[in-house]
């Protein structure tokens, strides 16, 4: 199939699944077709720019693009046109990818169902009004409904993996610092990670090959020197004929839906049948990870979002009240959504002088013990942490469910308390706190012949820091294991 034909099919799906509300902004269809034709010409004359040349890629709308506005699904950035392009988009364009539009999300990435959006809630577009997960829900459903070939999302506490699990797509969160964040609008800098969604592990690998790499514009981007160290550390994996897969006992939380638990067990059995070893391990700090995340992320968010005052860009208050000598408050009150406000308040509290020690500092300590827990179970050491040593008895990877439940109906979310929504991140947050590479691989209830309604389930594969290629390679093998009936 020519690239143009693939693009036409995607455009058709765009119309078909318009109700999913996956996009906040489409690129002009004429431009997309023209770009695809040019790419076809390049490919037919042997001048293909890269394996992703001419592919349609959608970009989460918290990543800056020139030519298309970048709004973070927030009224505070309504119509904001970035004066520069993010590094990740620049790299994709240079490789020939066609940026087909900006995808919907929870405002500034804060949410688990892509419903907290100034552009309206995202849904699966199949009539059941199911949640697509969040916050990269637009990116996930755009891929799942074939409106694009792949998409770029961001994952702060599960924002790529949860939507991947809910929509039946592959969602990859690389190690923190692998893909540049230059041009990625910050929610919680120390956790924000750019990642990839697509319909197969191989496609993810192709996009990752293009987008990874050091960037001098991002002070948290891994240097070439560190990348080399990570590569050689990964090679020092304990020599064993087969894989040793760890199952953290703490992840078997009561909230896990019984069907999902069964699929997890059966998947592990398939792993064993394939000749690999499965061992039970313990990550004792897991229980504290969720609350730690909801202290640290809002603290950083409260700081990062202080810039949206409506003075320099974005929207000012429609009727500012100046009598109290307060210039920004009205505009911020009008233009930021409820969940964003909730997290700013939470963060402002945990950073305040009287709460800092009990909340923020404690949370940082827990974050370190979460990292240490992971370092203790993996076979290879964490290159970034001097105290971390190789463990010959350690595991290669961890395999757990991505989400504890099936996608809820949007209508039922109205009855959720914020706390219940936060609970959906319980299995994804620990790897975020430790900055580890994780991929969520989809499977379906019917694949396992279960006597339940059909539905998508995601299983996540977690690797040691910097072991991204190993995670992806193994995910490729697992993909086959999970899809074969």
């Amino acid at each position, binding site marked *: 199939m020519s690239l143009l034909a693939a693009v036409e099919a995607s455009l058709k799906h765009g119309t078909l699944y318009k109700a999913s509300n996956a996009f906040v902004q489409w690129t002009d269809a004429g431009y997309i077709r023209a770009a695809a034709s040019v790419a076809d010409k390049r490919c037919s004359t042997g001048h293909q720019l890269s394996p992703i040349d001419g592919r349609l890629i959608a970009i989460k709308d918290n*990543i*800056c693009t020139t030519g298309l506005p*970048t709004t*973070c699904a927030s009224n505070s*950035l309504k119509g*904001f*046109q*970035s*004066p*520069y392009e*993010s590094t990740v988009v620049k790299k994709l364009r240079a490789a020939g990818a066609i940026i087909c539009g900006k995808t919907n999300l929870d405002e500034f990435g804060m949410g688990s169902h892509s419903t907290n959006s100034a552009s309206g809630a995202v849904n699966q577009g199949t009539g059941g009004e199911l949640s697509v997960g969040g916050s990269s829900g637009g990116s996930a459903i755009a891929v799942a409904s074939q409106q694009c070939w792949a998409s770029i999302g961001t994952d702060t506490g599960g924002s790529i993996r949860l939507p991947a699990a809910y929509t039946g797509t592959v969602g990859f969160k690389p190690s923190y610092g692998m893909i540049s*964040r*230059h*041009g*990625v*609008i*910050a929610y*919680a*800098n*120390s956790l924000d990670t750019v990642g990839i969604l697509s319909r197969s592990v191989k496609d993810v690998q192709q996009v990752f090959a293009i987008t990874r790499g050091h960037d*001098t*514009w*991002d*002070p*948290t981007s891994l240097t070439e020197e560190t990348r080399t160290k990570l590569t050689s550390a990964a090679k020092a994996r304990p020599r064993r004929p087969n894989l040793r897969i760890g199952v953290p006992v703490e992840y078997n939380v009561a909230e896990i839906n019984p069907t999902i638990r069964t699929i997890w067990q059966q998947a592990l059995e398939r792993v064993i049948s394939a000749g690999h070893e499965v061992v039970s391990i313990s990550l004792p700090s897991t229980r504290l990870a969720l609350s730690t995340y909801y202290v640290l992320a809002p*603290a*950083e968010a*409260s*700081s990062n*979002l*202080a*810039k949206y*005052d409506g*003075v*320099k*860009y974005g929207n000012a208050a429609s009727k500012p009240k100046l009598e109290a000598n307060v*210039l*920004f408050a009205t505009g911020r009150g009008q233009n930021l959504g409820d969940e964003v406000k909730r997290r700013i308040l939470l963060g*402002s509290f945990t*950073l*305040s*002088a009287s709460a*800092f020690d009990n909340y*923020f500092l404690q949370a940082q300590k827990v974050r370190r013990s979460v990292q240490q827990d992971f370092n203790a179970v993996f076979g290879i050491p964490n290159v970034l942490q001097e105290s971390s040593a190789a463990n010959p008895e350690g595991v290669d990877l961890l395999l757990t469910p991505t989400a504890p439940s099936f996608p809820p109906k949007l209508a039922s979310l109205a009855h959720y308390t914020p706390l219940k929504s936060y609970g959906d991140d319980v299995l994804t947050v620990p790897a975020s706190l430790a900055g580890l590479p994780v991929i969520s691989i989809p499977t379906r209830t019917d694949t396992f012949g279960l006597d339940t309604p059909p539905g998508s389930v995601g299983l996540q594969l977690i690797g040691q820091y910097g072991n991204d290629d190993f995670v992806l390679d193994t995910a490729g093998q697992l993909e086959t294991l999970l899809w074969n009936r």
Partner: protein
Amino acid sequence: MRHTTAVVNRIARIVYSSPACIRRHQSTLPFRKQLKDEAKLRKAQRGLINDKNPENDSGEDWELTVGLEIHAQLNSERKLFSSALTSITNELNSHTGLFDLSIPGSQPLLQKTVLLPALRAAIALNCEIQLESRFDRKHYFYHDQPAGYQITQYYAPLAKNGHVVLTQEDGIAPEDYPEVRVGIKQVQLEQDTAKTIQQPPDDVLLDFNRVGHPLIEIITLPHIHSPQTASACVRKLQDILESVNAVATGMELGGLRADANLSVQQRNTVGECSYSGVLGLGQRTEIKNLSSFKAVEDAIIAERNRQIQTLEQGGKIEGETRGWTLGSTETKKLRGKEGEVDYRYLPDPDIPPLLLSGELIEHLKHTLPALPDQQTSYLISSFDITMKDAKTLVSLDRGLRLDYLAEVFDILAKLGHDSYKLGRTASNWTLHELGGLLSTHSVPFEANPVSARALAEIISNLQNEQINGSGAKTLLSLVFAGTERNIDQLIVEHNLKSRNFEADEYRTIASQLLEQYPKMAQEIRNGKTGKLQWFVGQIMRASQGKMDAKTATDTLIELLGI
């Protein structure tokens, strides 16, 4: 930067204003005059404050304690966290990077070269440089702060535990003689804010050129007990920062700003408060944004008096922030405790810890320019220059005057002169004769038309008695006026060469004059010796200034028999 143009234009539209607003005042006021004027003003001001505050006498019963926070703009080519160039006088909103304007998705990129002036400053202030320091965000909403926070070093600063020693010559208060040692708690790097330009009647315009300019904040311990010493401390800090090339401009151009925190307590009592480990102090208040040495001293006097008055009337001092306007006699409350800002310090998640190598610090220590005190004592010991002149030379024209004198010494040495013997003469000619011409004609030192060689040759001729003092002055004026002739030519053409007159020649002229003015001669004999100078002047005039004044005087005394 090209890709920020769209946003910059937008900002420029919002905040457009005439560039004249930011044109800086170029001070050409000679240092001595400035000192004199300030002393005069100080005296006047004191009188004013004393009149209004009769309880000032009770200053005896109260002890004042002051700590200072100095914000100094670093002499740096680039901003602290963006590669945009720093700018002081450029077109409004022309020097900004993405991060300086807080454009979404941009991140801080620490500019390593900024560290050098900061480290030089910290070393010059005898601090312990921290091999690992960190950056934190300090949050508050204000229109001059585009991110909603300022990046500073709150939890782990660049340098700690320094000190500065102030002596009598630094202008400290007499009760502090012979010297005071003021501890420096820490030196930290931070960002400057945008510049607010008031546009009457009620527009507030913003120039973002200054936003993100690197600053150091120097926090002293509360070790100062007099307003005069506090002011001397700020001046000394400025001199030190200038001498190690850490700052581009001083207080007079807004490159340096000071906050003062102060408390009073009755002598021989122990207060209940402690600040930075200094125990037994009274409740303190803070005065923000003092922009001149005089403001530092006056504001502290006024606030001390207010605190004493409050306490003597049975009142209580509240921990609050106060402001000071130049020329006023009292500080004003800006915000009290209940209005205090909780800065919600957050370790910046984007900026890695700043790691320095011990070798870099050692290298900087060894290549540090001489500090003012070292320069002063060198001038005194090697060139026999007076303390007063040495101090002036060191602090004048950002060291340019001193460089000039050094060149004069070099040339004099090549001409075979002993620098120690000629030190005072050369310094005198550089500071006072040349300085006098410069200030009379309002020429800044940078535009000094007299080359070091010309001055050296004038001094050499004088020393070799080829010319006399008045001839030397004539030569200097000619060179200053821009003549193209060299010194030797000028001496010939203007007939300035002194010749040795015989004792007879002195006697002849002297007796002629005494005969011509017998009445005056008699008055001198009767004891009005002051009139002797008149005769000396006449002799000099008769010889076109070439005779020696001392020989002339001696001859007159001899002839008059007094």
